[in-house]
């Protein structure tokens, strides 16, 4: 009783402290779930995964000594490995369970959603990845502060990183707790603490090397598991997808409507705005950008995007088949249904489908994979947050670039621990809150603060410190404030009768604010510093195009 009250008070305190509680129902989240019976197959497989990852961490810890090891795995990751790790970092449990649940509920709409998450990658490879690798060292702040003033740009980039990481992390922690309650029959709080402790272990001891390999193992498990479920579904239809679709149309309550776009794009402005956030947000996610510094050179950076795009695209095709499989094999079996919906909640579609096609063993395996997925994503996020604090704020701003390696590493490890505690506390505080807006908000801020500044710093000679700072902060705050005023937060979370801003996706408005801010305050900036910053562009440009002088951590 007491505990419940404390938790509720904590949740409110957090809400008001962030004063933000922003919005944008960008996405499927894991949502609320009912506790299930303890599932020993699942727990055994999950324990197996944890043991493997702890071995990886032990192995990585022996090889993690310098800053370059901790932030960038010594730059020794290959293109294919990094591609798998990016896929492992990007494909969350929400996209596996959430998108297959969306397909299960409304058919084709789920595909529209997943396409949005994929189309940012070609933009990253054609316009960003190589320049990023040639200019940066450990974080994307290295790139934006390359020729601009260190302190204000590092602060902006660290803020952009930490805000994105915070919202993404809360969404993952709450998802983890719900999922474990659901799949393993463990208590929510135990689950959240377990996730927090494991991610802190991976990151503090194993740094980027352990994080990378945890993500690679997870990506292989997730792709393998989803492939197996999809193949077992198709077997039942003689490998004829049209037979699967025909059966789904027959049994789904909405019949032929599931073969068409439905309500998801009812409002074109909303759809375009969400599309912008997903497309350009991907190119501004700090934990993804950081992965480009783990490879030796621009060539490996571009290859890793190709592999990542291929794996992620393939994965979304699988979730589509899995969603349709669940319509035909789960929704038709009363064993999986309860109270007019799925047993355990809407997001159980993929999990029950695994049971339907592969029995308890496959159910356990898919449950363990879903949990492993969360661990890999939160580790990447935590590492990005810790790097923003230790490399950008501590070493570059507070110690003006004169921090020694040992102190910087100690700060990053302490930050990891703090982030772990904060993530656990927020995960518990937000248990019963509506968090559907959080991943969308993270993408909107990445698209409105990180992306414009990063893009212009590499492409536009005229960008000055003043322009970047005004534009970046304006984009960040606009995305945040519009989200708070939107239906997803103002109405759904704060229980006001009507939203002040009528769209859940702010990027269509906040991105132009950022770009115009950057442009206007750069051209108005007549200072001597602005002139020298423009002169420095040429050397930066030549390095970004040729890689001459690029810091290859492995050489």
């Amino acid at each position: 009783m007491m505990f419940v009250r404390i938790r509720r008070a904590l949740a409110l305190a957090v809400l008001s402290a962030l004063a933000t509680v922003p919005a944008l129902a960008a996405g499927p989240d894991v949502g609320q779930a009912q506790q299930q019976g303890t599932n020993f197959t699942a727990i055994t497989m999950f324990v197996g995964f944890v043991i493997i990852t702890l071995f990886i961490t032990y192995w990585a810890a022996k090889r993690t000594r310098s800053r370059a090891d901790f932030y960038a795995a010594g730059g020794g990751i290959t293109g294919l490995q990094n591609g798998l790790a990016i896929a492992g970092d990007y494909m969350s449990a929400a996209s596996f369970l959430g998108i297959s649940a969306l397909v299960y509920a409304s058919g084709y709409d789920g595909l529209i959603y997943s396409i949005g998450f994929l189309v940012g990658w070609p933009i990253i490879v054609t316009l960003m990845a190589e320049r990023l690798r040639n200019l940066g060292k450990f974080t994307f702040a290295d790139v934006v502060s390359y020729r601009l003033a260190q302190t204000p740009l590092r602060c902006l980039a660290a803020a952009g990183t930490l805000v994105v990481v915070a919202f993404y992390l809360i969404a993952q922690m709450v998802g983890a707790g719900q999922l474990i309650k659901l799949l393993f029959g463990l208590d929510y709080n135990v689950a959240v603490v377990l996730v927090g402790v494991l991610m802190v272990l991976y990151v503090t001891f194993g740094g980027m090397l352990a994080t990378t390999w945890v993500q690679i193992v997870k990506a292989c498990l997730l792709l393998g598991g989803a492939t197996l479920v999809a193949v077992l579904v198709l077997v039942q239809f003689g490998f004829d997808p049209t037979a699967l679709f025909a059966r789904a149309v027959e049994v789904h309550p909405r019949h032929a409507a599931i073969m068409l776009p439905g309500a998801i794009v009812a409002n074109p402005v909303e759809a375009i705005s969400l599309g912008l956030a997903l497309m350009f947000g991907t190119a501004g996610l700090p934990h993804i950008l950081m992965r480009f510094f783990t490879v030796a050179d621009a060539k490996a950076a571009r290859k890793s995007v190709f592999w990542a795009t291929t794996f992620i695209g393939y994965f979304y095709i699988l979730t589509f088949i899995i969603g349709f499989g669940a319509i035909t094999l789960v929704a038709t079996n009363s064993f999986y249904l309860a109270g007019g919906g799925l047993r355990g909640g809407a997001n159980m579609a993929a999990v029950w489908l695994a049971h339907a096609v592969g029995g308890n063993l496959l159910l356990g395996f898919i449950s363990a994979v879903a949990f492993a997925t969360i661990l890999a994503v939160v580790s990447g996020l935590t590492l990005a947050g810790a790097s923003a604090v230790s490399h950008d704020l501590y070493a570059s701003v507070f110690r003006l670039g004169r921090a020694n390696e040992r102190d910087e590493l100690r700060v990053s490890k302490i930050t990891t621990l703090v982030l772990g505690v904060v993530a656990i506390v927020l995960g518990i505080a937000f248990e019963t809150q509506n968090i559907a807006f959080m991943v969308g908000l993270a993408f909107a801020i990445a698209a409105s603060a990180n992306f414009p500044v990063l893009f212009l710093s590499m492409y536009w000679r005229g960008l000055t410190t003043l322009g970047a700072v005004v534009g970046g902060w304006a984009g960040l705050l606009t995305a945040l404030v519009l989200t708070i005023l939107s239906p997803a937060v103002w109405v759904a979370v704060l229980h006001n009768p009507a939203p002040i801003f009528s769209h859940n996706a702010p990027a269509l408005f906040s991105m132009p604010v950022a770009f115009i801010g950057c442009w206007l305050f750069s051209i108005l900036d007549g200072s001597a510093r602005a002139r020298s910053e423009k002169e420095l562009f040429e050397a930066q440009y030549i390095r970004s195009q040729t890689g001459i002088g690029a810091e290859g951590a492995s050489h």
Partner: protein
Amino acid sequence: MSADVVSRVRENPEFSKLIEKRNRYSWTLAILMLVIYYGFILLVAFDKQFLAIKIGATVTLAFPIGLGVILAAIIITGLYVLRANNVYDPMTRAIVEDAR
């Protein structure tokens, strides 16, 4: 990177050629992706009739189009990587050698 290297690279006509070629190719591909994706979203928003055309007993035109957007993302990424590996990397290597 010294000022000499910068000026040697800048004055190398091969460098301007590389930049022009690569920029044209990467912007073409990036814009192609934007057009494909937003074309798809606009189609979903404004022309559901078109997407509803049946191309089989149950399957609608929306399916190959959606799948096509996914494949387009993968193919565009692959096209850029192929061209960069085979054309831009050798050009860049030659420019870097010259500047040393």
